[in-house]
């Protein structure tokens, strides 16, 4: 996965980059299966690797397929990235160990979710639709707003509206 990203950074052919990002999404879905997040993996494989790739290819069809040579030397972004990485590593060292059952994340509300209060065996569905239903409502609002924005941006202008 990391290798895919490393190849992606210097590649200037945008088609290759988009295909690589699709491969990266599938690898991410595999990693999510290994982490027991089957629902997320399925969504990532269909949305991340499927719809995103189609959208990117559609945009590429309307634009130019080659990236221009970078004019600046990337030293400043590199320095920023490395310092951010150092800060994040320092922060991550304070997190609980991987797969530690006594970590706070496993102690708070989750034992209650796992008691099957809503009679749906898939706990992810139960939490999504029942305990955190308003999240999905907000999500729908975001998707609707994005759709409205895209229509407003890409609508064919009538001739009398057209800019000279």
């Amino acid at each position, binding site marked *: 996965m*990391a290798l895919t990203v490393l190849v992606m950074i210097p590649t200037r052919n945008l088609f290759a980059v988009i295909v690589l990002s699709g491969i990266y999404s599938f690898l991410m879905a595999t990693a999510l299966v290994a982490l027991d997040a089957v629902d997320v993996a399925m969504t990532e494989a269909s949305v991340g690797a499927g719809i995103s790739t189609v959208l990117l290819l559609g945009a590429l069809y309307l634009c130019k397929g080659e990236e221009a040579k970078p004019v600046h030397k990337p030293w400043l972004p590199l320095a920023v*990235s490395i310092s951010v990485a150092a800060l*994040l590593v320092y922060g991550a060292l304070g997190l609980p160990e991987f797969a530690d059952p006594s970590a706070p994340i496993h102690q708070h509300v989750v034992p209650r979710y796992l008691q099957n209060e809503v009679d749906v065996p898939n706990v*992810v569905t139960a939490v999504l639709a029942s305990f955190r239903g308003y999240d999905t409502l907000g999500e729908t609002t975001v998707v609707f707003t994005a759709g409205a924005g895209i229509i407003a941006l890409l609508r064919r202008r009538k001739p009398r509206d057209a800019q000279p």
Partner: protein
Amino acid sequence: MGHFAYIVTIFLMVAGLFIVIARGNLIKKLIGLGIFQTSVYLLYVAPGKLLGGTAPILAAGYTVYSNPLPHVLILTAIVVGVATLALGLALVVRIREAYGSIEEDEILGKEGGA
């Protein structure tokens, strides 16, 4: 094992950040943003894993389940992510129509010259 998952996450996150800052091409920037976003999925889901746990689908014979709450949050995040990606690409297409380019430097040059 320890913090290995977090280190991988941080590497992906910083790689995405680097692409967003360093590259001038707007589509490449959006792909970098996508990588940044997927690294956040990993950051949320990785702490929810329990060794010996199974996926959080209740069934007889299993007692240890991985944490379902991050999965729910990330499901929402993926869908919102694709919506923002689509909106960003629509903006890129409009910029291309208006300026004839999707390179940041060329666009800024035209802005300055106009």
